[in-house]
């Protein structure tokens, strides 16, 4: 399964006025990796769970905000 967030390190100048944010992240939800949804994709166990997640398929769920801290492997 693909990772849900990617990280990058912007350039930091010695003359920046504010304390730098050294690592920035952006969301890469699973739809970006699925050109066409395959048939028979596994579904959540209960309708309640599916409703809560907003989708029938766990593989298409995208968490936000980032539940993992920087450095941990997510997804």
């Amino acid at each position: 399964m693909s990772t849900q967030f990617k990280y990058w390190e912007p350039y930091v100048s010695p003359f920046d006025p504010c304390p730098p944010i050294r690592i920035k992240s952006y969301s890469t939800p699973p739809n970006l990796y699925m050109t066409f949804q395959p048939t028979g994709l596994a579904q959540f166990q209960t309708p309640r769970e599916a409703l809560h997640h907003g989708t029938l398929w766990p593989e298409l769920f995208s968490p936000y905000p980032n539940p993992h801290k920087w450095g941990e492997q997510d997804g």
Partner: protein
Amino acid sequence: MWYYEKKLQYPVKVSECNPMLAKFLIEQYGGADGELSAALRYLNQRYSIPDKVVGLLTDIGTEEFAHLEMIATMVYKLTKDATPEQMKAAGLGAHYSNHDKALYYENAAGTPWTAAYITAKGDPIADLYEDIAAEEKARATYQWIINLSDDPDLNDGLKFLREREIIHSLRFREAVEILIEERDRKKIF
């Protein structure tokens, strides 16, 4: 900063006196999917996007200004020798009353360019998808202008510009692929 080269990216030749084509071409000058929108969109988005794709936005944004010059040259050639009567007959009477022969950042219907045509969402995926859509819309606009024009020399320049939209769209899609690539993960074979 920029260096200026005093020539067009691709030669512009207009062989028929048809000021009405200028009215249609102005869509690519100051329209929503025109070259000004494209240049300003890319050159603005590049500040907050991951550094891997900043260079691409700088290069394509710069090329869009070269395209803007080509469109401007076409419009100027088509209108510079037109009489007020010819301007009126070409549907450019309203333009003439406001601007004489001056070019203006407006669309084919005369609506002035607005920053509302472009966005900067800050999310790199959303911004690049907008760029891909913008290139496809610009390609379509060139197609409709070519359909309206029967000047083969002018169409030669428009076909060049249409092809550039196709290449830019591919480059932006490649940029998305770079940004969604799983680089942090260790590959196990």
